[in-house]
């Protein structure tokens, strides 16, 4: 699956609405149903429009995150395809209400944000498009606080392996 640039922001919206099934299949993830989303909140358009990571987090949550080893993010060191980089998050934190992904140096840092309904296993796997080598950050909102994990993912032109 490759995502073209023009599909990019549209796709993020689909994932947010819980229609991004391809990315979620079989991973024990329950994306929020559209009606629940509607009842809970509206689409955080402003957060997705922010360029920088700090601004996006502020727009989405209105507070800052602290790094936590209870947020376990799995991402490759070097992406096999920058257009679809598999990144997943699980956490041992309780009372998780949302999980978000940010790619620091993408044109718009916020890549995806998931609402986690009560009683759901807090585990999300998705694939992010990355413009270049940069940090990927996962944010877990739990008990009203923000916790994060960050890893650098390299996007390379490839070739020249020994």
């Amino acid at each position, binding site marked *: 699956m490759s995502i073209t640039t023009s599909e990019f922001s549209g796709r993020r919206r689909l994932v947010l609405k819980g229609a991004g099934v391809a990315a979620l299949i079989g991973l024990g993830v329950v994306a929020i149903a559209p009606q629940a989303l509607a009842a809970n909140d509206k689409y955080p358009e402003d957060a997705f429009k922010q360029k920088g990571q700090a601004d996006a987090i502020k727009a989405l949550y209105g507070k800052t995150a602290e790094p936590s080893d209870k947020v376990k993010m799995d991402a490759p060191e*070097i992406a096999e395809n920058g257009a679809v980089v598999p990144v997943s998050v699980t956490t041992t934190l309780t009372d998780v209400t949302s999980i978000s992904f940010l790619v620091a140096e993408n044109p718009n840092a916020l890549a995806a944000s998931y609402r986690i309904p009560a009683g759901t296993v807090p585990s999300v796997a998705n694939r992010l498009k990355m413009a270049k080598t940069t940090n990927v950050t996962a944010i877990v909102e739990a008990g009203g606080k923000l916790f994060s994990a960050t890893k650098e993912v*390299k996007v390379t032109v*490839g070739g020249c392996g*020994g």
Partner: protein
Amino acid sequence: MIIRRRELLKATAAATLAAGLPHLVRGAETAGVYDLERFGNARILHITDTHAQLRPVLFREPSVNLGVGAMAGQPPHLVGKAFLDRFGIRPDSADAYAFTSVEFEKAAVRFGRLGGFAHLKTLIDKLRADVGERRSVLLDGGDLWQGTGLANTMKGADMVEAANLLGIEAMTGHWEFTYGEQALRDNLARFKGEFLAQNVFLTEEAAFNDAKAFDPASGRVFKPSTIKDIGGHRIAIIGQAFPYVPIAHPKRFTPDWTFGIRDEELQKLVDGHRNNDKVEAVILLSHNGMDVDLKLASRVTGIDVILGGHTHDAIPLPITVTNAGGVTLVTNAGSNGKFVGVLDLELTKGKVANVRYRLLPVFSELLKPDPAMQTLIDKVRGPHVADWSDKLASADRLLYRRDNFSGTVDQLICDALVSELNAEIALSPGFRWGLTTLAGQPLTMEDLLSETAITYPETYVASMTGSQIRDVLEDVCDNLFNADPYYQQGGDMVRVGGLAYTCTPAESAGKRISELKLPNGRHLESGKSYKVAGWASVNQQSGAPVWEVVARHLRAGRPANRDAPGVTLKGVDDNPGIVRQG
């Protein structure tokens, strides 16, 4: 060659052949260089990165192999005298010739070629006979099926036959994958050993489409590990394929598979073998490359020894790495059939009590070729050798490849690309395989293929801007010098022709390359376009195979370009990973 044999016997009483691990008792000097003192109760033999070199080779080890950050000055990033001092090898010895580039041309004449599968067979059979029936195992770390014109033409099938005759019981892979899934599976169907890879999984799409997998539940494409009974002891062997196959090579060869280092999955596997299978030792047969293995050893617990390859580092002694669970030893066994790693384990009370390791250079002059293997080699080479034995030219100087930034054989390839394809600038991949030819020796197509035989050899001519060229150099340079080994891919710096530059390896990504200049002294302009020729692109290309382009260049007898490679290094003054001239 009686004189050479005597020279060798005199000169091989050096440290490595008799040395055990530090802190362990050193073996007494042995009568014959390959008569090892008996030690322990299970012997594991390891070869890696032979690159399909069925016949004995000349292969010059690097004179530039820089380490940066925490890796600076640490094995494997030692060359020349610093290497000899670190491992206690006498400068004029046969070992110095096998392990370093010190006085290579003189020593090559004195000590001759190394390796060759018929010679390997003789040595391996002896090392196995010495310990007795079922007390040893033979492992191959991958890059077994690629590196010659013959292997490329036969998609590795020749090497499967040689591997079966040699008695390889388990292997992992890297270039093996570049023949594509079908050829790989066809070869494995005929391979009598096991192909192990814990870190190759189906992509989500392939899993969804029920693509073939060893374990559909986990998505593991290959068997991850095997348990061998060696002398009544249960030893787990885990395979670790090269983690970056779809990045370093065209993705079209492995569209359904995803790789990676995957140390969490590895940890689970190790724990399972320890806790459930009650093995006495865990060995990782790795194609990670040595820097990656050293980091992995510090993170993953429960592995006794990592038998490593990929980076072609011939390291005489294991490096001890401490981790949360204890200690893991890390080795790397060189390349091109030059060495056999001998790991003797003393297993008592269900665990490894002691080990002894030797990396034996395979001096062809000291070993009688095994007749059955020699017959097989002659048989598989037979149909092609006539086509490839015409002399194209004579080597105008020592032709070698290995060094971080350039090698004379790559300068020759770049010259051919610039001149035959009318380009301003040439790019050539920094592979670490490829043989060495002494000045004055004839160069045949078979020799040329041993430098270039890959499944994506097509040349290209492209228009690239100065900033694009700089980006490529930066990108490849980071694969080599990223301070975190997990972000390195192995391989050396892309070679350039028609361009000079300055490199500061210890800088961060994007800041290492500067002062890019054309031969006329002008700076490369960011916005200007240049005509660039190259080969081995990860994108599909349609030009003539590079060996045809270079052969045309050699046949035309053009005067050799003797310009020194235009790479100026900064910040490496005290680094023992570089041999200084003069």
